[in-house]
């Protein structure tokens, strides 16, 4: 039997923002549907309405012609709608099995059998009796999927499922989703990644600022056409010019190792590399292979031996981030709201945190507010941060604007080296483009970049040289034009 899901004239209004503006859509099982849009386009709101987390102000939802009243997540479950959220809804300290049994009415033994048969069928292998916090992101997602499958859903909604997955995990996920679809489950796939839509889906609905802008078949679309629909303007494609090879070495890392006491951290083993002026070194890898430790060692959050890092002919391995900044290094950490900025503080206060001796933000221990505000305004206008209120708390900036602010804060002092870690993670196309342009520009100004990223496309686009980190070890450094994403994939998996 074919499952038909119909969304009819759904509207959801938040103070100051129309999240869904009279959206109507129809889905039939047997196809995989993409719901595409930038961050804030309203696609998450729409699927939260479908899963009962949010109640719409107006509009109806029909499943096989039955009008559904979804007032809570359990209503959605009862009506065979399963949802895998972008942020996992798992209980980290409970075991996998406890996570699965919690919303099931079945007996322990029969549920265990059912889970085993699901895992066998789809080739999942997860230890059911270990706490969820020991699992990788890909495994956690599988637990979420199993949780849906236990209820044999008619509809399975996946909200940005690949944002935490590696390439390999992504292709495994796609295989599973295709299999589910063949078995008659209606799949709705929410994403802002165009490549995935082209790879996986049959039909695509594009949303922009709460409105549905188009519904079309994938075969009539390509990446450019979808990108333009999504952003609502013609995006210029940016390309990096071939860098002039400079031999002026800026930073040199020699025999750098780091051993952590925390079993959840990765040890770094014998890292050696150097970056010349005007060069971008990309460091690829599956997340959790030592990237965050490497970033911390490079930024000075973790202090190492003095001689292991030579920057601009100074040995700086034992300096803290503040002291390294004085030598004209700049840092953009992975977690924008935890590491790079303090969410509850105002924009200008966050700017002041990046304090230099030369910046005169403080005068005899007092805050020189005018100076900081002036400086913040310059960052906002120079780096296209979409707000004019520097008194706004940073948590209210969108991811893209916050990242622009952070990069701007780091770059406005024109550092010699910028070290960034997943700078475009979770951003929409427009913001990604802007960040990429900015990074290319600083290379052109003969400044250097170390780009640690899990996004292979980004690395291939921006880097002059690429290395892969696997279990805390760096591969040999390759010229970017000799590398393909397949080759990176193999190295990321640990092969030589």
């Amino acid at each position, binding site marked *: 039997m074919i499952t038909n899901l119909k969304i009819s004239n759904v509207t959801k209004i938040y103070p100051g923002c129309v999240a869904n503006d009279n959206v109507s859509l129809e889905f039939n099982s047997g196809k995989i549907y993409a719901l595409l849009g930038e961050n804030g386009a309203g696609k998450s709101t729409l699927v939260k309405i479908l899963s009962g*987390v949010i109640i719409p102000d107006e509009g109806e939802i029909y499943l096989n012609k039955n009008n559904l009243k979804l007032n809570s997540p*359990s209503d959605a*479950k009862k009506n065979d709608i399963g949802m895998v*959220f972008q942020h996992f809804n798992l*209980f*980290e*300290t409970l075991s996998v099995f*406890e996570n699965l049994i*919690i919303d099931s009415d079945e007996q322990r033994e029969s549920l265990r059998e059912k889970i085993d048969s699901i895992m066998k069928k789809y080739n999942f292998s997860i230890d059911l009796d270990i706490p969820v*916090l020991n699992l990788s992101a890909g495994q956690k997602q599988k637990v979420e999927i199993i949780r849906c499958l236990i209820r044999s859903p008619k509809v399975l909604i996946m909200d940005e499922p690949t944002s935490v997955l590696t390439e390999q995990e992504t292709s495994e996920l796609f295989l599973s989703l295709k299999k589910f679809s063949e078995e008659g489950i209606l799949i709705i796939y929410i994403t802002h990644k165009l490549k995935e839509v082209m790879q996986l889906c049959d039909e695509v609905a594009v949303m922009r600022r709460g409105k549905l802008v188009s519904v079309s078949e994938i075969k009539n679309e390509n990446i450019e056409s979808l990108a333009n629909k999504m952003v609502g303007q013609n995006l210029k494609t940016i390309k990096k010019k071939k860098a002039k090879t400079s031999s002026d070495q800026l930073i040199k890392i020699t025999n750098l190792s780091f051993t952590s006491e925390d079993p959840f951290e990765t040890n770094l083993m014998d890292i050696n590399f150097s970056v010349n002026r005007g060069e971008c070194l990309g460091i690829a890898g599956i997340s959790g292979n030592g990237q965050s430790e490497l970033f911390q060692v490079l930024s000075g959050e973790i202090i190492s031996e003095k001689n292991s890092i030579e920057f601009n002919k100074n040995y700086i391995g034992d300096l803290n981030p503040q002291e390294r900044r004085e030598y004209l290094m700049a840092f953009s950490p992975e977690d924008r709201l935890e590491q790079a900025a303090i969410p509850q503080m105002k924009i200008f206060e966050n700017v002041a945190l990046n304090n230099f001796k030369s910046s005169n933000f403080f005068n005899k221990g007092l805050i020189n507010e005018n100076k900081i505000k002036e400086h913040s305004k310059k960052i906002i206008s120079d780096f296209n941060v979409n707000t004019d209120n520097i008194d706004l708390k940073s948590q209210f900036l969108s991811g893209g604007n916050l990242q622009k602010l952070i990069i701007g804060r780091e770059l406005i002092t024109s550092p010699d080296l910028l070290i960034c870690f997943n700078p475009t993670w979770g951003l929409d196309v427009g913001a990604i483009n802007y960040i990429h342009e900015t990074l290319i520009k600083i290379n052109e100004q003969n400044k250097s970049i170390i780009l640690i990223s899990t996004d292979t496309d980004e690395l291939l686009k921006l880097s002059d040289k690429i290395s892969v980190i696997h279990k805390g070890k760096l591969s040999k450094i390759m010229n970017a034009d000799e590398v393909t994403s397949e080759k990176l994939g193999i190295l990321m998996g640990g092969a030589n």
Partner: protein
Amino acid sequence: MIIDINFIGLIIASIMASAVPLILASCGELITERSGVLNLGVEGMMIIGAISGFALMTVTGSLIIAIFGAMLAGVLISTIFAFLTQTLITNHVATGLALTIFGIGISAMIGKNFVGIPGKEFPVLFDGFKDTIPLLGPILFGHSIVFYFAFALPFITSYFLKKTKIGLIVRAVGDSPESASNQGINVRLVRYACILYGGAMSGLAGAYLSMIYTPQWIENMTGGRGWIALALVVFSTWNPIKILIGAMIFGGLTIIQFHMQAIGVRIPVQFLTALPYIVTIIVLVVISRDSRKIRLSTPSSLGKSFYKDN
């Protein structure tokens, strides 16, 4: 010096008796904290239970009404806490402290008329078997029903948390209220229930003090046991069985204190009173060295308010 073996049995029994209110209040607070709520009002709820139990016993003459009345009083006062922290989303720590101050104050006010009134004798079970077995006799027999309940409670609590569906839901809510809510669990309801249960157990602990342990009403008679119960929960790393061990150690310190004074050993009383807290801090330092263990045993959302966005 020959020590009578039954004398040792009596000392152990008295240690156990002093552990009873600690076990009751800690096991209640443990459930509350496992659901992610930090209720620092244990001392206040205990003293309310103590005065309510004693007052009801004096007024009605019924021990059963008094015991259940004390539990109900604990429930009522914890309802205030639940309403403030769960419905009005106030800060757990500030609200809990206020509850304790409120409880001590109001119990003193109600208790004015009950000072100096002698309590009633509380019936004990299996009294006749006391002398049948040396050493074990005084330990096992001749105690109140509340005593036996208290020593069963850690095991019941452990079974409840590990083996039952509702126990699993309580742990899930404490781990991640957001996920639980998205799973269709009514987080507020679960937390309300856990807070009220904690209140009932604190009330019972208080009633044990004023009706069984020292059957009389004295102002401020809980004397910091509520705080020790709170420390015990942390000491136990949220494990009910370890509460039993901790309560015996902490209860033992109180008893040893008396005996040492009797023998004439000079250790400042203040040091012995402070010992439970010092031990708790040492335990905290020891477990915090193992980040994995602390992650697994501490309820992740402890003390954090949960807002449901809609």
